[in-house]
């Protein structure tokens, strides 16, 4: 009896072991085969890449998507990256971020009434034809009182949206369907950015049939079986780790060259290894590892101007969120000369090279260079690195060392310390890059301290004007809409420096005023350039760098281009094998 039991035990063990063995050997074959595939492509250097029929690429993400695969509900960039491959926007953006027709083209005379015309024959992945009714359905969903996402603001300006949301109307009166391919949209008033503000993603009516608006967010068409009009269809979603996309043969811009795109989540520690091995083909690369990726023989590094910028902000006042105004001025950094001197003392080129591998550019304004409203550097102070000049300015402004401790005192003769704060996330480069900034300031005689604060707490302190927040590091992203009011007007919560400047407020208002700018882009740009000159002169924040978007791309991938608005349509991508 005893013997028998131990025999069973042994047999069970053996069985389990053999299962593992089987798994291993099976995997070896797979991996081996995959490697062979990749090796063939390595020889394919120089000359035009020959497109191969079909093929699969692996597109890696360095963070897990939330799995909200519909434009109306997505929340994070990662989900948007996936969405971009299988669902098309009705309009698109060019290299200067000006809107261009895509599926829909539009006409307007007064910036109040727009007529949109859809391409005929655009098919959803389920075979339905895309019509303007799908768009109306989408806009009414956003305006529905049960809709919980952040996009109501993108319909709010349509005439009658307010009434619809309050339940006073059954439909949005500003949406007037002319026929299946034409729609007239009337806004509540003429604005220069009506088109940019409008939500231009339709929703398939059949897929969401019978689903209440309140339940849509968690429903299958959003999470598990999303559909769109894009070059690829979602075939399968494995929550938190991968998505399988297959070619959409009926894509309106032409049949995709690839058969499949596998989207895979890869931990950031594994990105370089996986790229090197050819396990992944396309991945967004963090600037700090950009140089390693560039050195790889089988990988190309593609870059495009980015839309975000990093800055060092100063708290110039205290904001009252109830009254929506800056209620108290802070004196410490009130002197413009001090801020300018601090700007001159930073060697931004060196800093970008050291902490972002050089994949960034010095920026002198809160608008990314690629944007059509960006002011030319010739019209701005460029604040070159010049510690001598910084010292001169500080001397002039009265910041001199009066007690011979090697550091400057403020004009009243009191100790002056730059208390600089930076957020901490566990990324080890953050502390050193912040420290580097304080060292630049110490070099011109400004005593500086650094505090690293946990990121959630950090932004809470920044938003609430915590007393300990004086000079702070931050970053902002820019969209296609040129209007920066939300981050810069004095009555805005997210105007973190609490900078109040009447002329700036006025310019930002004028640039949105149809009476003043009409449809004249040049006139509008002129106002924005003027505004940028003021910000550049006043420096409520020191603009440090605009980062580039960089992607690592296996050399076997072709037809893929990147510009400021993102990738080209994925139906043009191919592999050479």
């Amino acid at each position, binding site marked *: 009896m*005893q013997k028998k039991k131990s025999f069973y035990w042994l047999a069970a063990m053996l069985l389990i072991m053999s299962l593992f063995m089987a798994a291993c050997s099976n995997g070896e074959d797979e991996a081996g085969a995959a490697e062979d595939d990749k090796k063939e492509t390595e020889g394919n250097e120089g000359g035009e890449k020959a497109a191969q029929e079909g093929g699969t690429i692996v597109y890696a993400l360095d963070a897990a998507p939330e799995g909200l695969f519909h434009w109306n509900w997505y929340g994070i960039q990662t989900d948007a990256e996936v969405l971009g491959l299988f669902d098309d926007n009705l309009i698109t953006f060019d290299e200067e971020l000006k809107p261009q027709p895509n599926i829909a083209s539009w006409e307007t005379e007064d910036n109040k009434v727009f007529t949109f015309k859809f391409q005929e024959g655009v098919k959803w992945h389920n075979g339905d034809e895309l019509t303007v009714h799908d768009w109306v359905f989408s806009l009414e969903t956003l305006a529905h009182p049960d809709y919980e996402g*952040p996009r109501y603001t993108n319909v709010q300006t349509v005439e009658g949206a307010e009434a619809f949301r309050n339940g006073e109307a059954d439909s949005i009166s500003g949406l007037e369907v002319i026929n299946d391919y034409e729609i007239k949209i009337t806004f509540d008033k003429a604005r220069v950015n009506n088109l940019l503000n409008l939500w231009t993603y339709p929703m398939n009516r059949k897929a969401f049939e019978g689903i209440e608006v309140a339940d849509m*967010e*968690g429903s299958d068409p959003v999470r598990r079986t999303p559909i769109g009009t894009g070059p690829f269809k979602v075939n399968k979603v494995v929550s*938190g*780790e991968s998505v399988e996309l297959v070619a959409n043969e009926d894509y309106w811009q032409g049949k995709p060259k690839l058969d499949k795109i596998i989207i895979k989540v*890869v931990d950031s520690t*594994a990105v370089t290894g996986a790229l090197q091995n050819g396990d992944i083909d396309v991945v967004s690369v963090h600037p700090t590892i950009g140089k390693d990726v560039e050195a790889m023989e089988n990988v190309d590094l593609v870059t495009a101007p980015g839309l975000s910028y990093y800055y060092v902000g100063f708290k110039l006042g205290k904001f009252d969120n109830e009254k929506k105004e800056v209620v108290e001025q802070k004196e410490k950094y009130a002197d413009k000369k001090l801020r300018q001197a601090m700007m001159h003392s930073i060697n931004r080129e060196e800093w970008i090279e050291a902490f972002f591998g050089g994949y960034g550019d010095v920026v002198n304004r809160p608008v990314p260079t690629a944007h059509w409203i960006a002011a030319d550097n010739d019209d701005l102070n460029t604040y070159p690195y010049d510690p001598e000049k910084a010292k001169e300015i500080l001397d002039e402004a009265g910041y001199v060392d009066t007690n011979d401790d090697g550091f400057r005192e403020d004009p009243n003769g009191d100790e002056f310390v730059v208390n600089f704060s930076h957020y901490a996330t566990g990324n080890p480069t953050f502390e050193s890059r912040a420290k580097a900034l304080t060292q630049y300031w110490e070099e011109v005689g400004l005593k500086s301290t650094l505090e690293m604060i946990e990121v959630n707490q950090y*932004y809470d302190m920044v938003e609430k004007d915590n007393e300990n927040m004086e000079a702070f590091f931050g970053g902002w*992203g820019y969209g296609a809409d040129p209007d920066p009011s939300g981050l810069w007007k004095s009555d805005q919560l997210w105007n973190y420096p609490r900078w109040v400047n009447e002329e700036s407020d006025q310019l930002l208002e004028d640039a949105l005023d149809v009476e003043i700018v009409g449809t004249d882009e040049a006139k509008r740009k002129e106002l924005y350039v003027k505004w940028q000159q003021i910000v550049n002169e006043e420096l409520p924040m020191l603009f440090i760098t605009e980062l580039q978007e960089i992607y690592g791309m296996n050399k076997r991938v072709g037809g893929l281009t990147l510009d400021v608005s993102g990738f080209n349509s994925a139906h043009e991508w191919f592999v050479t094998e």
Partner: protein
Amino acid sequence: MLKYTLRRILGMIPMLLLISIVVFSLALSMPGDPFGGEIDPNNTDPQYIEEMREKAGLNDPVHVQYGRWISNFMQGDFGESTRYKMPVAELIGERMPNTLFLGITSLVITYILAFVMGMYAGRKPYTTADNLIGGVNYLGLAVPSYIAGVFAIYFFSFKLGWFPFSGSVDITLQNGSFEYYLSRLHHVFLPAIVLGALGTASYTQFLRNDIIESSRKDYVRTARAKGTPETKIYNKHILRNSIIPLITFLGFDIVTLISGAIITEAIFTYPGIGQLFLDSINNRDYPVMMTLTMMFSFLVLFGNMIADLLYGIVDPRIRVD
């Protein structure tokens, strides 16, 4: 025994209630909330964020928030994840199979390694092989799992190409097919090795010490005197006695099985409970975070109880009543 079990279960209730208060207040005292942090100004605006805070009840007084949470919790409504926008129960249910699979695999690996090494080391103590096993064990104990994970990926995935470095399954395979399950095993093996090998040390040393101790006992001497073969003495008489204390480890293993391996899962992008827990903390996803913490606490209590009950079963000298 039944009475004892019931008493223990009843005793858990006040304990869990206290834990819930601690969990809740610790969660709320973390700086920031799910809607703050790094904001994308193109995708949201202050009014919307304020609305969401109001909707989530974050502006209510603390005791109101606690009352609402605990009463929902007792009724089995764990709330909705603020990040994934889906019910917490569903989210955990989605991740649980992965974590259980990883946990069980790593436990099996741990047992196999521990039995083989422990028995050998116990039988031949103070030899070179024993010292080697001890050395390896203590090294395993000393190396943090995130280092081991990264190195394992580097060698076994990138250099040798034996194992995949991320995910839980190859997405191109048909769900439920034989290849699908093989692929799952293949994916789980490397993280399970990292997890299991590092956990082996305590089991091995425990078994080894117990075998050495038992081998000096009277009944072993008697068996030897009667001429019982050495193999039989070790594999039958001693082992059976030495396994008993190990069984009680099982209670604690339940917790490890479910709670997953936070760091290992993150490094291997293995979507399980551990990764979910880490994400929920980073994103201040209160409902997920608090539900998971409560679940872990319950499992610790439960595991302790199982361990105590097992003591009573395997060793009749210990009376649990």
